[in-house]
């Protein structure tokens, strides 16, 4: 158990941007929402998963909708109270703690705001260890958990809770409600008991975000190695490529940002070319036509000088980036995990081979 205040939020937000693997939405607005809540209501208690009683109700908090809408409408401040009331009434018991469902991007921040505003603890875990585009893409699905009963509330005070027959239906219905409510809503989903959480959650991910964030912030302070070596050491990442963006192709289909970014090598990679394909998050990275990493491993683009993560919507001609691969949470590498988030699910015709092995070849 420890407290997280404004300084910790800054680092968690930076780490979350990296774990966003190109997507997840810019944590900046989320960070302000968290800071706004902590300034008003005080710091948040962060619990280790093992500290949660087996029968306690833990509720993941997230936003749903377009990050651009969130960057305009942010969060009103009463949403989390409405969510609390809706969910605890439904279950007939109080909520013990909140947690993030998606540690990558903006959804890393909103549970902190919820915890601060309701005076509840936050659990140091999530269901992805990164960001993913679809709602059922969480470790809890592997454990047989269900996204519903899912509660949705908007800033105007509207709320609903629904149960669905499949997670796919949840996604469809939630999208419809989100659009009707103005493009972004606060949600709770995959509510669970402590025992289940301990079995399937990606543990310690809030702390890992904070470690990553603080490392990126201080990467230039190291003296015994180059900032790049330090960055790769702390992130335990694999350097896949360094290049200059030569083109960005984008397309919006079914509410997702699809695209491909082309890179011309610089430095050690001069003369080589690479590409990274994305669907909200980066899906594949290939150098000279050879795949070096695929989902569910994290493919992150970072600025070659500052090592700040570059999300897919900030990709721009001429920008110099390093492509880094980070191994995903082990559960994603199982048969069940790959069915949910492996390359074939995203229509990429290749078997999943762990990043470490692809890089060895």
């Amino acid at each position, binding site marked *: 158990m420890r407290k997280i205040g404004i300084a910790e939020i800054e680092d968690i937000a930076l780490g979350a941007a990296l774990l966003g693997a190109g997507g997840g939405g810019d944590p900046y607005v989320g960070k302000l929402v968290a800071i706004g809540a902590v300034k008003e209501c005080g710091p948040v208690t962060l619990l280790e998963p093992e500290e949660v009683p087996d029968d306690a109700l833990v509720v993941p908090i997230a936003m749903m909708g377009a990050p651009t809408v969130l960057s*305009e409408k942010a969060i009103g401040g009463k949403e989390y109270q409405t969510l609390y009331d809706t969910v605890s009434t439904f279950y007939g018991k109080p909520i013990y703690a909140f947690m993030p469902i998606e540690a990558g991007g903006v959804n890393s921040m909103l549970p902190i705001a919820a915890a601060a505003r309701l005076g509840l603890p936050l659990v140091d875990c999530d269901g992805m260890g990164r960001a993913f585009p679809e709602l059922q893409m969480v470790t809890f699905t592997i454990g047989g958990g269900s996204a519903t009963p899912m509660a949705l509330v908007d800033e105007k005070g509207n709320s609903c809770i629904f149960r669905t027959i499949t997670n796919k239906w949840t996604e469809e219905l939630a999208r419809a409600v989100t659009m009707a409510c103005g493009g972004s809503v606060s949600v709770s989903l995959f509510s669970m008991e402590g025992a289940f959480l301990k079995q399937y959650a990606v543990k310690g991910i809030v702390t890992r975000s904070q470690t990553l964030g603080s490392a990126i912030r201080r990467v230039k302070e190291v003296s015994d190695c180059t900032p790049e070596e330090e960055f790769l050491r702390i992130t335990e990442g694999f350097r896949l490529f360094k290049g200059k963006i030569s083109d960005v192709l984008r397309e*919006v289909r079914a509410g997702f940002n699809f695209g491909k970014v082309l890179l011309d090598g610089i430095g050690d990679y001069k003369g080589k070319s690479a590409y990274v394909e994305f669907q909200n998050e980066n899906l594949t990275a290939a150098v000279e036509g050879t795949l070096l990493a695929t989902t569910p491993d994290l493919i992150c683009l970072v600025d070659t000088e500052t090592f700040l993560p570059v999300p897919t919507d900030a990709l721009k001609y001429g920008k110099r980036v390093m492509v880094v691969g980070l191994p995903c949470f082990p559960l994603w590498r199982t048969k069940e995990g790959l069915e949910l988030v492996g390359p074939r699910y995203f229509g990429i015709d290749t078997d999943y081979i762990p990043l470490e092995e692809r890089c060895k070849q």
Partner: protein
Amino acid sequence: MYKLGIDVGGTNTDAVLIDEQLHVAARVKQHTTEDVYSGILAAVRAVLKESGVDPSQIRQAMLGTTQCTNAIVQRKGLASIGILRIGAPAALGIPPMVDWAEDLKAIAVDTAMIGGGFEYDGKELAPFDREGAKNFFLRLKEKGIQSVAISCVFSTVRNDHELEAAKLCHEVMGDQVHVSISSEIGSMGLIERENATILNAALYHVAESFTEGFAHSLQDEGITDADIYLSQNDGTLMTMEYARRYPILTIACGPTNSIRGACYLSSLKDALVVDVGGTTTDLGVIQNGFPRESGVAVTIGGVRTNFRMPDVISIGLGGGSIVREHSDGSVTVGPDSVGYQITEKALIFGGDVCTATDIAVRLGLTDLGDKTKVAHLSEEFSRKAMEAIAELVEDSLDAMKVSSEDVDLILVGGGSIILPEKLTGARTVTKPEAGGVANAIGSAISKVSGNYEKLVDYLVLPREQALEEAKAEAVELAVEAGAIRETVEIIDVEDVPLQYYPGNTNRVKVKAAGDLK
């Protein structure tokens, strides 16, 4: 006819006269004064005297200034303002200025968040709370506030509520009150747009003082036939009237001007520019004749905005940087500097502080002041200091380079005399003769631009075609604004998919710029 370019920096006010063939006819450097006006006046007077040009021959006068940036960074001259945000119940979780430094926050005398705003599709989020707005303006009026920043949720989609609030503000507080509305200043992202709007509102005093100072000094020197412009951060110009309303747009024009000035003086289209001042050195990159833009959100005085700026890094090295020998025999240069007091404090000027300039004189890189006053500095100490200087620049050079290949380097700025002729990582080093006033030259050769923005459904009009059409429209707008058609180039193209519109709707934005007639 001549163009007059002026750059008002924190330390110096420079002026240049440029003839029709874009040759530099005269250039001068004067100290910046507290009131700005007398510094400009002195510079204009000096440049006229040096060139012998008849003031009536000056048809265009351009001013580039860091006054706004300095005002924000130093928290000087900022006006007390009121902040109105329209959009409740949305965004209430983030009050205005939530992550601002406390001292800067003090500019806001009163803040209100009231009902109103829009959804992404232009639907009303909540009705505009006219009563709430009116009460807020009455409160501001009582407190004697003269400037108001108004922002609204999704005002980039519809600005009706902002316009209504602005009108009401004038009705309640009078016509003389300055109203800044966010839809005219920033782009998508409420907080960044609101931040820029707040800064804009707080800058109205500063803007008044430098625009008036500029206009008066020109008139006083008999320059009465000139069109007057101010430099913007993207290397293009705006009118005085526009600058008074949107002073925030002058932010960071200094680095842009110096990079463009250097580019012009050296005739290089791709190079790295090192601008050495009295206290700091800025490094920037020219790509195809324009400054390379930074990819990160720009922070001014700790405030995040959504402006785009040239990609510049600053290091604490300049002509006035203080040189020290340590007990272990090592020598360091900067980051502290004697700044504008160099003419009193440097050894060569009879002072008692060893500066980077003294080292340059000692090693014979330049002939300045009284060199006998640095003769006592040992050869070893001077070499060590020069190595430290070279190392500082070479490190940053490496950070700015796009590849391991050596680059062409352009050295400009008054302090560039302190740099050695050879630097690791540089293929060639060019020191243009007029490099000391590259900022003012950049300002004088600024371009006029045309901005075109439209929502296009790529299913109806394919991307290629849509971009071509938008580019053509932007070129026409630039020509209308006074650009010579043959010189107009597209400087920025952006298309952003709008997920919430039907089909494959994109916001297409094109900016074209060309030389002023």
